[in-house]
Protein backbone atom coordinates (compact mmCIF):
# COMPACT_ATOMS: atom_id res chain seq x y z
CA UNK A 1 0.00 0.00 0.00
CA UNK A 2 2.70 2.44 1.06
CA UNK A 3 4.72 1.55 -2.03
CA UNK A 4 1.82 2.39 -4.34
CA UNK A 5 1.25 5.70 -2.56
CA UNK A 6 4.98 6.41 -3.02
CA UNK A 7 4.68 5.82 -6.74
CA UNK A 8 1.62 8.03 -7.14
CA UNK A 9 3.26 10.90 -5.25
CA UNK A 10 6.54 10.42 -7.18
CA UNK A 11 4.57 10.68 -10.43
CA UNK A 12 3.05 13.98 -9.29
CA UNK A 13 6.52 15.17 -8.18
CA UNK A 14 7.87 14.56 -11.68
CA UNK A 15 4.84 16.20 -13.32
CA UNK A 16 5.04 19.32 -11.15
CA UNK A 17 8.85 19.45 -11.50
CA UNK A 18 8.69 19.34 -15.32
CA UNK A 19 5.77 21.77 -15.24
CA UNK A 20 7.69 24.26 -13.10
CA UNK A 21 10.54 24.51 -15.62
CA UNK A 22 8.42 24.47 -18.80
CA UNK A 23 5.55 26.82 -17.91
CA UNK A 24 6.13 30.25 -19.48
CA UNK A 25 4.12 32.13 -16.86
CA UNK A 26 6.56 32.71 -13.99
CA UNK A 27 3.79 33.08 -11.41
CA UNK A 28 2.49 29.67 -12.44
CA UNK A 29 6.03 28.29 -12.22
CA UNK A 30 6.32 29.62 -8.66
CA UNK A 31 3.02 27.96 -7.66
CA UNK A 32 4.04 24.69 -9.34
CA UNK A 33 7.34 24.81 -7.45
CA UNK A 34 5.36 25.22 -4.24
CA UNK A 35 3.28 22.17 -5.17
CA UNK A 36 6.51 20.27 -5.90
CA UNK A 37 7.84 21.17 -2.43
CA UNK A 38 4.59 20.08 -0.81
CA UNK A 39 4.65 16.71 -2.62
CA UNK A 40 8.30 16.19 -1.61
CA UNK A 41 7.21 16.95 1.96
CA UNK A 42 4.53 14.22 1.71
CA UNK A 43 7.12 11.81 0.32
CA UNK A 44 9.52 12.46 3.18
CA UNK A 45 6.72 12.08 5.72
CA UNK A 46 5.90 8.65 4.21
CA UNK A 47 9.59 7.67 4.41
CA UNK A 48 9.58 8.58 8.11
CA UNK A 49 11.88 11.62 7.86
CA UNK A 50 9.44 13.84 9.73
CA UNK A 51 11.98 16.58 10.55
CA UNK A 52 12.95 16.98 6.89
CA UNK A 53 9.28 16.94 5.88
CA UNK A 54 8.58 19.67 8.41
CA UNK A 55 11.44 21.81 7.06
CA UNK A 56 10.31 21.26 3.47
CA UNK A 57 6.72 22.21 4.35
CA UNK A 58 7.70 25.41 6.12
CA UNK A 59 10.65 26.55 3.97
CA UNK A 60 9.91 25.05 0.56
CA UNK A 61 6.15 25.19 0.32
CA UNK A 62 5.69 28.18 2.62
CA UNK A 63 8.19 31.00 2.67
CA UNK A 64 10.09 30.37 -0.57
CA UNK A 65 6.82 30.43 -2.57
CA UNK A 66 6.01 33.79 -1.01
CA UNK A 67 9.49 35.10 -1.89
CA UNK A 68 9.16 33.83 -5.48
CA UNK A 69 5.74 35.48 -5.84
CA UNK A 70 7.15 38.73 -4.43
CA UNK A 71 10.05 38.59 -6.92
CA UNK A 72 7.69 37.87 -9.84
CA UNK A 73 5.38 40.68 -8.74
CA UNK A 74 8.29 43.13 -8.74
CA UNK A 75 9.88 42.02 -12.03
CA UNK A 76 8.02 40.43 -14.94
CA UNK A 77 5.53 37.58 -15.31
CA UNK A 78 6.80 36.43 -18.71
CA UNK A 79 10.01 34.55 -19.36
CA UNK A 80 12.33 36.03 -21.97
CA UNK A 81 13.50 32.70 -23.40
Amino acid sequence: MSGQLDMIILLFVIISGIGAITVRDLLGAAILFGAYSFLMCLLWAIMGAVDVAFTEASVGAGVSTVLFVAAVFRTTRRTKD
Partner: protein
Amino acid sequence: MKLVALASALLCGTILLFGTAEFPDFGDPDSPAASHVSPRYIEEAMAETSAPNIVTAVLADYRGFDTLFETAVVFSAAMACFFLLRIFGEDERRPSEKLYRHLPTGITLRIDPGGKVPDSPEFERIDGIWIPHDVIVKTTTRLIIPFIQLFGLYVIAHGHHSPGGGFQGGVILGASVILYAISQNLRQALGRMGEAVSAVFCAAGVFIYAGAGALCLLMGANFLDYSGLAPLFGVDAIQARSLGILVVEIGVGLAVMSAMVWIYYNLASMGRHQEGL
Protein backbone atom coordinates in the same frame (compact mmCIF):
# COMPACT_ATOMS: atom_id res chain seq x y z
CA MET B 1 24.30 24.04 -29.18
CA LYS B 2 21.02 22.71 -27.76
CA LEU B 3 21.78 19.26 -29.21
CA VAL B 4 25.18 19.23 -27.46
CA ALA B 5 23.49 20.19 -24.20
CA LEU B 6 20.83 17.47 -24.64
CA ALA B 7 23.47 14.85 -25.48
CA SER B 8 25.64 15.74 -22.46
CA ALA B 9 22.60 15.77 -20.16
CA LEU B 10 21.48 12.35 -21.46
CA LEU B 11 25.02 10.96 -21.07
CA CYS B 12 25.34 12.23 -17.48
CA GLY B 13 21.84 10.95 -16.70
CA THR B 14 22.66 7.49 -18.06
CA ILE B 15 25.90 7.31 -16.06
CA LEU B 16 24.04 8.38 -12.91
CA LEU B 17 21.32 5.78 -13.54
CA PHE B 18 23.98 3.08 -13.88
CA GLY B 19 25.58 4.39 -10.70
CA THR B 20 22.35 3.99 -8.74
CA ALA B 21 22.34 0.26 -9.53
CA GLU B 22 25.35 -0.06 -7.19
CA PHE B 23 23.52 1.68 -4.33
CA PRO B 24 22.42 -0.32 -1.29
CA ASP B 25 18.68 -1.00 -1.11
CA PHE B 26 16.31 1.31 0.75
CA GLY B 27 16.64 0.55 4.46
CA ASP B 28 19.45 -1.98 3.96
CA PRO B 29 20.95 -2.64 7.44
CA ASP B 30 24.36 -3.52 5.92
CA SER B 31 24.73 -0.28 3.95
CA PRO B 32 27.73 1.92 4.89
CA ALA B 33 25.43 4.71 6.08
CA ALA B 34 23.62 2.37 8.48
CA SER B 35 26.65 0.45 9.80
CA HIS B 36 29.12 3.06 11.11
CA VAL B 37 27.81 6.13 12.93
CA SER B 38 24.04 5.60 12.72
CA PRO B 39 23.85 2.72 15.24
CA ARG B 40 25.88 4.74 17.72
CA TYR B 41 23.59 7.76 17.37
CA ILE B 42 20.47 5.61 17.65
CA GLU B 43 21.72 3.66 20.67
CA GLU B 44 23.54 6.38 22.58
CA ALA B 45 21.86 9.69 21.69
CA MET B 46 19.19 9.50 24.39
CA ALA B 47 21.68 8.43 27.06
CA GLU B 48 24.31 11.02 26.07
CA THR B 49 22.19 14.10 25.36
CA SER B 50 18.78 13.31 26.95
CA ALA B 51 17.13 14.59 23.77
CA PRO B 52 14.44 12.09 22.66
CA ASN B 53 14.47 13.44 19.08
CA ILE B 54 17.67 11.91 17.68
CA VAL B 55 17.56 14.16 14.60
CA THR B 56 17.83 17.27 16.74
CA ALA B 57 20.55 15.70 18.88
CA VAL B 58 22.62 14.97 15.75
CA LEU B 59 21.86 18.35 14.19
CA ALA B 60 22.58 20.61 17.14
CA ASP B 61 24.97 18.54 19.27
CA TYR B 62 26.98 15.89 17.39
CA ARG B 63 27.07 17.95 14.20
CA GLY B 64 26.92 21.35 15.84
CA PHE B 65 29.55 22.85 13.54
CA ASP B 66 27.44 22.15 10.44
CA THR B 67 24.40 23.84 11.92
CA LEU B 68 26.47 26.81 13.10
CA PHE B 69 27.63 27.49 9.58
CA GLU B 70 24.16 26.80 8.13
CA THR B 71 22.93 29.61 10.35
CA ALA B 72 25.81 31.76 9.11
CA VAL B 73 24.74 30.96 5.52
CA VAL B 74 21.17 32.13 6.25
CA PHE B 75 22.61 35.31 7.78
CA SER B 76 24.84 35.95 4.76
CA ALA B 77 21.89 35.35 2.40
CA ALA B 78 19.91 38.06 4.19
CA MET B 79 22.95 40.37 4.11
CA ALA B 80 23.44 39.71 0.37
CA CYS B 81 19.77 40.57 -0.33
CA PHE B 82 20.20 43.76 1.67
CA PHE B 83 23.34 44.86 -0.16
CA LEU B 84 21.97 43.97 -3.60
CA LEU B 85 18.45 45.37 -3.29
CA ARG B 86 18.29 48.09 -0.66
CA ILE B 87 18.02 51.65 -2.00
CA PHE B 88 17.90 54.46 0.54
CA GLY B 89 15.99 57.68 0.00
CA GLU B 90 12.77 58.62 -1.77
CA ASP B 91 12.01 57.42 -5.27
CA GLU B 92 12.03 60.46 -7.62
CA ARG B 93 10.03 58.69 -10.33
CA ARG B 94 7.11 58.06 -8.01
CA PRO B 95 4.78 60.88 -7.00
CA SER B 96 5.17 61.83 -3.37
CA GLU B 97 1.46 62.34 -2.74
CA LYS B 98 -0.24 60.35 -0.02
CA LEU B 99 -3.36 58.25 -0.54
CA TYR B 100 -6.02 57.93 2.15
CA ARG B 101 -9.12 55.78 2.03
CA HIS B 102 -12.33 56.76 3.79
CA LEU B 103 -13.28 53.42 5.28
CA PRO B 104 -17.13 53.68 5.49
CA THR B 105 -17.54 54.80 1.86
CA GLY B 106 -14.42 53.40 0.18
CA ILE B 107 -13.54 56.77 -1.40
CA THR B 108 -9.82 57.35 -1.93
CA LEU B 109 -8.36 60.79 -1.30
CA ARG B 110 -5.10 61.94 -2.87
CA ILE B 111 -3.22 64.46 -0.77
CA ASP B 112 -0.51 66.46 -2.51
CA PRO B 113 2.74 67.28 -0.69
CA GLY B 114 2.10 69.93 1.94
CA GLY B 115 -1.63 69.20 2.07
CA LYS B 116 -3.59 68.60 5.28
CA VAL B 117 -3.53 64.95 6.32
CA PRO B 118 -6.90 63.64 7.60
CA ASP B 119 -6.74 62.94 11.31
CA SER B 120 -9.58 60.51 11.95
CA PRO B 121 -9.80 56.76 12.55
CA GLU B 122 -12.21 56.58 9.60
CA PHE B 123 -9.30 57.31 7.25
CA GLU B 124 -6.62 54.71 6.52
CA ARG B 125 -3.41 55.42 4.63
CA ILE B 126 -2.95 53.05 1.66
CA ASP B 127 -0.02 52.46 -0.69
CA GLY B 128 -1.81 52.42 -4.06
CA ILE B 129 -5.26 52.86 -5.54
CA TRP B 130 -5.27 49.22 -6.66
CA ILE B 131 -5.03 47.87 -3.10
CA PRO B 132 -8.44 46.39 -2.20
CA HIS B 133 -10.18 47.13 1.07
CA ASP B 134 -10.66 43.64 2.46
CA VAL B 135 -12.04 43.46 6.00
CA ILE B 136 -12.32 39.67 6.00
CA VAL B 137 -8.65 39.05 5.13
CA LYS B 138 -7.41 41.65 7.63
CA THR B 139 -9.57 40.36 10.49
CA THR B 140 -8.84 36.68 9.82
CA THR B 141 -5.08 37.17 9.69
CA ARG B 142 -5.19 39.33 12.80
CA LEU B 143 -6.96 36.46 14.59
CA ILE B 144 -4.68 33.63 13.44
CA ILE B 145 -1.27 35.34 13.62
CA PRO B 146 -0.98 34.93 17.45
CA PHE B 147 -1.65 31.20 17.12
CA ILE B 148 0.91 30.86 14.29
CA GLN B 149 3.51 32.60 16.44
CA LEU B 150 2.65 30.47 19.48
CA PHE B 151 3.06 27.35 17.34
CA GLY B 152 6.41 28.66 16.06
CA LEU B 153 7.64 29.18 19.63
CA TYR B 154 6.44 25.67 20.55
CA VAL B 155 8.30 24.18 17.58
CA ILE B 156 11.54 25.91 18.67
CA ALA B 157 11.18 25.09 22.36
CA HIS B 158 9.99 21.50 21.85
CA GLY B 159 12.43 20.72 19.03
CA HIS B 160 14.43 18.16 20.99
CA HIS B 161 11.32 16.21 22.03
CA SER B 162 9.28 16.22 18.82
CA PRO B 163 9.94 17.01 15.15
CA GLY B 164 10.93 20.61 14.75
CA GLY B 165 13.68 22.89 15.87
CA GLY B 166 15.17 26.28 15.23
CA PHE B 167 14.95 26.31 11.44
CA GLN B 168 11.31 25.25 11.20
CA GLY B 169 10.15 27.36 14.15
CA GLY B 170 12.08 30.38 12.89
CA VAL B 171 10.52 30.07 9.44
CA ILE B 172 7.02 29.79 10.98
CA LEU B 173 7.64 32.91 13.08
CA GLY B 174 9.01 34.76 10.05
CA ALA B 175 6.03 33.64 7.95
CA SER B 176 3.66 35.11 10.53
CA VAL B 177 5.33 38.53 10.16
CA ILE B 178 5.28 38.18 6.35
CA LEU B 179 1.56 37.29 6.54
CA TYR B 180 1.01 40.45 8.55
CA ALA B 181 2.93 42.50 5.96
CA ILE B 182 0.88 41.00 3.11
CA SER B 183 -2.54 41.29 4.74
CA GLN B 184 -2.08 44.78 6.24
CA ASN B 185 0.69 46.68 4.49
CA LEU B 186 4.45 47.00 4.51
CA ARG B 187 4.46 50.22 6.52
CA GLN B 188 2.58 48.67 9.45
CA ALA B 189 4.80 45.58 9.38
CA LEU B 190 7.89 47.81 9.42
CA GLY B 191 6.38 49.59 12.41
CA ARG B 192 6.02 46.28 14.27
CA MET B 193 9.36 44.80 13.26
CA GLY B 194 11.63 47.36 11.69
CA GLU B 195 14.61 46.86 9.46
CA ALA B 196 17.12 47.62 12.22
CA VAL B 197 15.41 45.11 14.53
CA SER B 198 15.54 42.43 11.80
CA ALA B 199 19.23 43.10 11.16
CA VAL B 200 20.17 43.07 14.84
CA PHE B 201 18.09 39.91 15.54
CA CYS B 202 19.65 38.17 12.54
CA ALA B 203 23.16 38.86 13.79
CA ALA B 204 22.16 38.14 17.40
CA GLY B 205 20.94 34.66 16.44
CA VAL B 206 24.31 33.73 14.97
CA PHE B 207 26.01 35.38 17.95
CA ILE B 208 23.95 33.30 20.42
CA TYR B 209 24.94 30.09 18.63
CA ALA B 210 28.64 30.94 18.33
CA GLY B 211 28.59 32.47 21.81
CA ALA B 212 27.21 29.25 23.32
CA GLY B 213 30.11 27.41 21.68
CA ALA B 214 32.65 29.95 22.91
CA LEU B 215 31.17 29.76 26.40
CA CYS B 216 31.85 26.01 26.35
CA LEU B 217 35.50 26.84 25.52
CA LEU B 218 35.65 29.28 28.43
CA MET B 219 34.22 26.63 30.78
CA GLY B 220 37.05 24.27 29.81
CA ALA B 221 35.21 21.97 27.37
CA ASN B 222 35.54 21.68 23.59
CA PHE B 223 33.85 24.18 21.25
CA LEU B 224 30.09 23.42 21.18
CA ASP B 225 30.46 20.62 23.77
CA TYR B 226 27.50 21.69 25.90
CA SER B 227 28.38 19.36 28.78
CA GLY B 228 30.84 22.06 29.81
CA LEU B 229 27.89 24.34 30.55
CA ALA B 230 26.65 22.08 33.36
CA PRO B 231 27.88 24.37 36.22
CA LEU B 232 26.10 27.37 34.62
CA PHE B 233 22.77 25.57 34.29
CA GLY B 234 23.17 23.85 37.65
CA VAL B 235 22.39 20.38 36.23
CA ASP B 236 24.42 17.30 35.38
CA ALA B 237 26.48 17.05 32.17
CA ILE B 238 23.87 15.04 30.21
CA GLN B 239 21.01 17.38 31.06
CA ALA B 240 23.28 20.32 30.17
CA ARG B 241 23.68 18.99 26.63
CA SER B 242 19.88 18.98 26.24
CA LEU B 243 19.69 22.56 27.52
CA GLY B 244 22.60 23.57 25.29
CA ILE B 245 20.67 22.25 22.28
CA LEU B 246 17.73 24.45 23.34
CA VAL B 247 20.01 27.53 23.57
CA VAL B 248 21.43 27.07 20.08
CA GLU B 249 17.96 26.30 18.68
CA ILE B 250 16.79 29.65 20.04
CA GLY B 251 19.74 31.30 18.29
CA VAL B 252 18.94 29.52 15.01
CA GLY B 253 15.24 30.43 15.31
CA LEU B 254 16.03 34.10 15.91
CA ALA B 255 18.44 34.28 12.96
CA VAL B 256 16.13 32.44 10.54
CA MET B 257 13.02 34.40 11.56
CA SER B 258 14.58 37.82 11.04
CA ALA B 259 16.43 36.71 7.88
CA MET B 260 13.14 35.63 6.26
CA VAL B 261 11.40 38.88 7.24
CA TRP B 262 14.35 40.99 6.12
CA ILE B 263 14.62 39.26 2.73
CA TYR B 264 10.87 39.69 2.25
CA TYR B 265 10.99 43.42 3.05
CA ASN B 266 13.75 44.04 0.49
CA LEU B 267 12.27 41.75 -2.18
CA ALA B 268 8.66 42.90 -1.95
CA SER B 269 9.42 46.63 -2.03
CA MET B 270 12.35 46.55 -4.49
CA GLY B 271 14.61 47.87 -1.74
CA ARG B 272 12.66 51.12 -1.21
CA HIS B 273 10.59 49.98 1.80
CA GLN B 274 7.82 52.32 0.61
CA GLU B 275 5.23 49.99 -0.88
CA GLY B 276 4.87 46.26 -0.31
CA LEU B 277 2.74 43.68 -2.03
